[in-house]
């Protein structure tokens, strides 16, 4: 889970490794994920989102499809 200057550089990095690029995520989308996962991490009631909650969180910022489904079969 890495940072890149542009989508073109993502493609170049994947091509160098013979890998298929996954979807890129904008920084504003990543902030939503960071907040959702970690904003209560130092509190007693903190817990990881359930798979259903994860799907809802991803869909809420436009991240849909099997790649973002925590229960998808490979």
């Amino acid at each position, binding site marked *: *889970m890495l940072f890149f*200057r542009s989508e073109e550089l993502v493609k170049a*990095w994947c091509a160098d490794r013979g890998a298929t690029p996954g979807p890129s*995520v904008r920084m504003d989308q990543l902030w939503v994920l960071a907040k959702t996962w970690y904003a209560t991490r130092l509190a007693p009631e903190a817990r990881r989102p359930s798979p259903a909650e994860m799907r809802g969180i991803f869909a809420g910022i436009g991240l849909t499809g099997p790649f973002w489904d925590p229960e998808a079969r490979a």
Partner: protein
Amino acid sequence: MTFETQVKLAVYRAFAEDGKAPSAASIASALSVREDEVFAAWSKLRAERVLFLEPDGRTIRMAPPFSGVATQHRVRVGSVEYFANCGWDALGIPAALRREGTVLSRCEQSGEPLVLPVGESGPAPSTWVFHSLVRASKWWDDLVFT
């Protein structure tokens, strides 16, 4: 509050304080319990995907978003510098601490440095992107690679 929750909070508070993974001895001392009780709690927290341990089962590698080992993703908050496990976790550290910070990382292809201020309402406008090679259903299969 369960004992595992007390241990989890002690681990996270230790990470938040100085950016370093606490030892079992320090957690045992803070909670006035034995080390073997701490290890048992760590094992349960690993099963709940709250902690990730080194193969010895006795050293914390990750308490997401914090990393117990050096990575290319550093986060400066106040006078403390933290290591994050990945790009997602780099933004997760200011979110967890609820404080402003600066993410210091790099473009993995070009090596260009990333210096990204993160305020309480989110990162400064940026055209950089985050990319995961691993799909969500596989993230915990090999968390270090992910």
